[in-house]
């Protein structure tokens, strides 16, 4: 049984704007083969389930329709792990300048 998501919940919808094969003529072949997709966040207008065609009210008050794909979507971008190729740069340039501040 599908779980309901309550009206007013902050969600994301997804919609295909242009299907694969109907892209603008100037885009490269591999882009032609995939659809132009759209994702927008807003408040769910009616109680619904994931995968439903729903309406949302965006933060500026517009009503948009699309498939309900995410609930309270996370911001997942980060820094990630330290990159070894960058770790020695500071030490190297301090050494060039005289190594007086923890270089070498």
């Amino acid at each position: 049984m599908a779980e309901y998501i309550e009206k007013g919940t902050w969600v994301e919808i997804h919609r295909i704007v242009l299907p694969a094969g109907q892209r603008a003529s100037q885009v490269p072949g591999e882009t032609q083969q995939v659809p132009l997709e759209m994702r927008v966040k807003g408040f769910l207008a009616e109680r619904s389930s994931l995968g439903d065609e729903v309406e949302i009210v965006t933060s500026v008050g517009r009503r948009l329709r699309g498939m309900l794909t995410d609930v309270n979507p996370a911001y997942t971008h980060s820094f990630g792990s330290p990159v070894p190729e960058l770790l020695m740069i500071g030490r190297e340039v301090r050494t060039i300048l005289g190594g007086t501040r923890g270089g070498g």
Partner: protein
Amino acid sequence: MTAALSYEAVLADRDAIMRASVGIDYQQYVTGVLAFDYERLLADTGYDIQRTQDVQSRTGVGNTPLIELHHITSLVRFLAAPGKGARIFVKDEAANPSGSFKDRRASLSVYEAKRRGYEGVVAATSGNYGAAVASQAAKAGMRCIVVQEAFDSQGIAQPEIAEKTRACEAYGAEVIRLSVGPELFYVFLCVLKETGYFNASLYTPYSIVGIETLGYELAGQVQEQTGRFPDLVIATHAGGGNVTGTARGLRKAGAVDTKVVAASVDLTGLHMASDRDFNRKSFTTGHTGFSMPFTTWPDRADVPRNAARPLRYIDRFVTVTQGEVFYMTQVLAELEGLERGPAGNTSLAAAFSMAQELDADQIVVIQETEYTGAGKHPLAQLNLAKQMGVEVRRGDPRDNKPGQRIVIPEHPSQIAVVDVDLEHVRRSYVRHALEAVHGEQPMSEIDLDFLAAETRSSRAYVKEAVNEWHRTT
């Protein structure tokens, strides 16, 4: 409902949508087949430096610090010939309310939109400009919609753009995130048509006039701190607004002998409309994927006439590699205590190389920084690059291959700008201009003078270039 209208119908309606959403009748500036009155287009905004500063200061935009990079200058002098190695300064534009110089561009647009009674503003941008418009709209009590190209067909978001999504949403904007492709313009037009909001394009006269204060301020600050105007001002170059507005501001401050350098990250070989290449680029702007097309033909923008016309102002156009910029980003943090970028660090890498050519009493200014954060950082970009199969290693930056290999220099002496041949760029501009009017009436003397101004050349040069085009087509 966004994009409920057909692609063809919306594009056919493009001119009317643009006219209503920008509130400028561009037709009144047309003076020839190609020519238009550029200076009048800008003057008709009604904003001089003083009035622009008045508007910008209301929201805390501008008056950012100018910081001398003493240790980086020392490193330059270590590498340069005796007596060489200019002093390097940076204009810390990260101190603007939303963290970049883009607040200057957004401020006049949003102010004008409000003054003219629009309910909201729309911007098509994946970068800092979206956050700037959203921030200014928040302050003005206006609604804001930002349309971004944000993720590829695998659903992988470019981390820098993900951070911009977050920032725009933090300022209360609606963010429409799209997958890769220039049809973003279609969605943008739909939104303008549906909402009747103001088109806060990066390329309106307001957006360019808003940057003039940057060049104006920095000229005054350099003079105050050193007793002279800068010799070189380096601007990270993409759509051309940064270079155009900064150069105009420098001139208005009287710094007419200051050379203006446009610096871009070299992304040669990567296609801007490619779903595959999208996440194999480690820079979302300030790269040749924008700067080459926009320098050689500015009128490919989202307004009928682009107010950013970089070829009128560039004295030198250089590229640096992704690895060189990442290297200098790290040096800036560790030698100067400034964690900034990415955008301004393209100019920083160029400055590091070009300062070595100048005398020790000369002055180079990097005219912007931007805020750094999650996603907007070399770590985020290099981790994504590795995930996408791009090789990352230390070595000679000349071995850099966009989309395949990022080479972080092993030694600062390896950092060296590559000059873009401006003669080639000028020819390319003339070719694009002629293609744009192909089949129409012959050009007048006004058009030849316009092309000469556009390319900083002469009527004789333009005539010769036009003849060459006719010979070869």
